[in-house]
């Protein structure tokens, strides 16, 4: 495998994009998410990289500090506008975390396998193809068998300018390895940009991963994200996918339970206001017997915000003794807010445990009255109930500084800062 071969691979990916184009609302998976807003904001060449190759964007220390997650003791990898920032990163020794660009030069074989475009991938679309064609940066983490990453790895993605950041991460845990990955997406400024990120996770037998994805980009920013997970025997995967920011965001999360005893727990929260749009599509594939999946997504939609949740669970014919439970609950805070929620269970054998529930509602008037009868103002009572509803998802975030940070980010958006503070204690 040579650099030339990678060039060929990228060329092929680009061709696929040219054939497929951007997804359109005519496609079943994109029925509720119209990408016209991205075209309008970024133009036909929406994919143009935000930062030309080899130039290094910079950000002041105080700005970096202001966007940080306070008190989170973590290894850090920083990407600004899609470019890896080695000088700002703090990575463990002996851990193989290589930026993609270097990988292409040092180990093209590995880079090629990472950039492979596979149209059979669940929810495959033009964004993934463009990502394969254009992503120059991303983190590659390989944990050897039986190693435990001692601290969470925080991957900071900071958007500061217009144009698109194509990012490609690949994380592989060998047998019984353990890691906690936090993908944080944020930004500064008013420029309309796009984050197009793909993260592939490969969990070998008995390995365990926590993965938290916190998206709180600027209101003028767009976000297309993908997480593809493959799980071998007895591996465990627990994730939180939180969408608070961006004008429009779409996250596709797919998990293939490919070895018996594998288990995943997917948690999600979309809490948006204004005219924001947040779309979560998930696919859990029970490919083999004896796997467990749990999924719990909640949405809070204020003003004219629109949420989309589509949770597909496939249980294959041979996947007996599968155990799956999915729940999606939505809270509409305004008469103009909207949500399109769709659970999709596709079960091809009888020997399974499957449960699902999906609700769309408003605040409970009896609960509101109870709180007001105890002296809370109506506004406070609404805040408290909204907080309680959303926090069901955030309460399992660990460690404490991460949970506190996300709760703050979520609730200071809807509430006065000091009220959020009170409720969190």
């Amino acid at each position: 495998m040579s650099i030339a071969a990678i060039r060929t691979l990228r060329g092929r990916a680009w061709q696929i994009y040219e054939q497929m184009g951007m997804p359109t609302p005519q496609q079943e998976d994109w029925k509720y998410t119209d990408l016209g807003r991205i075209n309008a904001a970024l133009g036909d060449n929406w994919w143009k990289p935000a930062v030309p190759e080899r130039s290094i964007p910079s950000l002041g220390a105080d700005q970096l500090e202001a966007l940080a997650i306070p008190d989170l003791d973590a290894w850090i990898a920083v990407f600004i506008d899609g470019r890896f920032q080695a000088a700002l990163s703090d990575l463990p020794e002996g851990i193989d975390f290589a930026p993609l660009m270097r990988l292409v030069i040092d180990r093209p074989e590995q880079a090629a396998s990472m950039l492979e475009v596979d149209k059979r991938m669940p929810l495959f679309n033009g964004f993934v193809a463009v990502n394969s064609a254009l992503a120059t940066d991303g983190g590659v983490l390989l944990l050897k068998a039986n190693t435990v990453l001692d601290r969470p790895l925080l991957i900071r993605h900071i958007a500061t300018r217009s144009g698109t950041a194509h990012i490609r991460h690949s994380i592989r845990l060998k047998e019984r390895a353990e890691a906690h990955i936090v993908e944080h997406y944020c930004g500064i400024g008013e420029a309309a940009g796009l984050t197009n990120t793909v993260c592939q996770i490969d969990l070998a037998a008995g390995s365990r991963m926590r993965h938290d994805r916190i998206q709180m980009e600027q209101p003028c920013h767009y976000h297309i994200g993908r997480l593809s997970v493959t799980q071998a025997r007895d591996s465990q995967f627990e994730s939180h996918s939180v969408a608070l920011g961006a004008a429009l965001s779409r996250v596709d999360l797919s998990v293939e339970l490919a070895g018996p005893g594998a288990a995943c727990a997917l948690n999600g929260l979309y809490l948006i206001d204004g005219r924001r749009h947040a779309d979560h599509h998930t696919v859990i594939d029970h490919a083999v017997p004896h796997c467990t999946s749990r999924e719990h997504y909640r949405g809070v939609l204020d003003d004219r915000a629109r949420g989309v949740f589509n949770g597909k669970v496939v249980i294959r014919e041979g996947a007996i003794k599968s155990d799956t439970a999915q729940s999606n609950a939505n809270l509409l805070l305004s008469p103009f807010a909207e949500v399109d929620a769709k659970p999709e269970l596709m079960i091809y054998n009888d020997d399974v445990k499957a449960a699902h529930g999906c609700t769309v509602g408003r605040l409970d008037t009896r609960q509101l009255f109870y709180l007001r009868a105890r002296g809370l103002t109506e506004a406070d009572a609404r805040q408290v109930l909204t907080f309680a509803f959303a926090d069901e998802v955030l309460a399992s975030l660990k460690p404490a500084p991460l949970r506190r940070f996300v709760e703050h980010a979520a609730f200071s958006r809807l509430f006065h800062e000091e009220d959020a503070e009170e409720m969190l204690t």
Partner: protein
Amino acid sequence: MLKIENLHVAADGKEILSGIDLEIPLGEVHAIMGPNGSGKSTLANVIAGREDYTVVEGSVRWRGDDLLAMTAEERAWAGVFLAFQYPIEIPGVNNVYLLKAGLNAKRRAQGLTELDAMDFMALVREQASRIGLEEDFLARGVNEGFSGGEKKRNEIFQMTVLEPSLAILDETDSGLDIDALRVVAEGVNRLRDPERSIVMVTHYQRLLDHIVPDVVHVLIDGRIRMSGDKTLAHELEERGYDWVKAEVGGA
């Protein structure tokens, strides 16, 4: 004094209360008894400010304030407290947070400074132990996973922390065993004060053995049909509500 005049209340287009007149002076405990469905909870909820009911006619004044013109929270700040017949579960909202927010909102409305966190916790711990609520209840969600008896205790616990001047207890006795009933009654009796009025809604006289009322009213089909002293409760227990109907010759 609580003064209710000619109160007519409807819900879903149906009249539930049909002209209630009631006066409860400061310092007194009044019991309101009546069969199921007679409108006792409706009366209690309308006083506390629940919005699902339509007040068709009449007035409710507490110490001169026109309660019907006030929101539920303003009534709470004016000293009104309702112990619910069916306390609702609010998962994820911390019990102590609710009390602190409620108490401080009331203090702000009264022009007082907010309680300092230490003093507040000391108060909460003392009242919880008096009412027999374990500390771990405090850290849980409001009524979340509580048994029926625990929910009722929690209502009384909240009442003793918030120290209302008008306490309305809606069937707080139902679902309580004898020991719990005694604890709850002690909580209410501690609150008896020349500056407070207490309304006890019940349809058994059991609770009234522990909290002796000054006056007993009988509510049937949305109207007060009879009032008397504590012996009326015993009479009702023996002779039932049909006797009252026959006596007043109505309905």
